[in-house]
């Protein structure tokens, strides 16, 4: 079944730890996105990818990094987590270039950094 997956769903971690949030999609989409969302607030684009070996930063400055080695996989890494990174991280994918079609979202990873 075509879908988009994120793991872990919840993560509580201490300051200074390195973490990787996983995102995989089985729809063969070239376009993938990472958003950050604080509770009850709007989504902010932090990274996006046009396809394999292509990554761009979004408008919201983020200390995280991403990679796109395979079409289906778009992991996000924080080298040294801080309490200010506490948020929900949403991964999405899209078939269409240019925002012309819908984005499919994963269930999100809720990150808490103590």
């Amino acid at each position, binding site marked *: 079944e075509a879908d988009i997956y994120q793991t872990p769903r919840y993560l509580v971690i201490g300051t200074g730890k390195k973490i990787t949030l996983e995102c995989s999609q089985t729809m063969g989409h070239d376009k993938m996105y990472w958003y950050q969302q604080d509770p009850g607030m*709007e*989504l902010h684009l932090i990274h996006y990818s046009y396809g394999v070996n292509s990554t761009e930063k979004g408008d919201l400055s983020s200390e995280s990094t991403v990679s796109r080695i395979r079409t289906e996989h778009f992991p996000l890494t924080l080298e040294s987590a801080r309490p200010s990174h506490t948020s*929900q991280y949403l991964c999405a994918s899209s078939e269409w270039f*240019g*925002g012309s079609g819908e984005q499919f979202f994963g*269930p*999100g990873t809720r990150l808490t950094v103590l």
Partner: protein
Amino acid sequence: SQQGEEDPQALSIQEGENATMNCSYKTSINNLQWYRQNSGRGLVHLILIRSNEREKHSGRLRVTLDTSKKSSSLLITASRAADTASYFCATPGQYNFNKFYFGSGTKLNVKP
């Protein structure tokens, strides 16, 4: 931010009533999309309306778009408790269509 305000920020209605929420944006667009988010989970796409369309229907959803006013509205008719969620509008970037901008959302509560 490219995205303007959504209003109301919160809306509470009884089951069976209609719910209307509005979205404003700041730049030229080629389409506008509406999404639903349940309890802080991932978003689900509801409907896409193109800039040359004025109105679009999908089941109990009716979306309008007024490009001259840079605004859109989402109407949910005959609401159900299961419609309780946050609703967001989203538009592509004016200069970079791969960027997507979301509004601040309307939190809808439908009371049974």
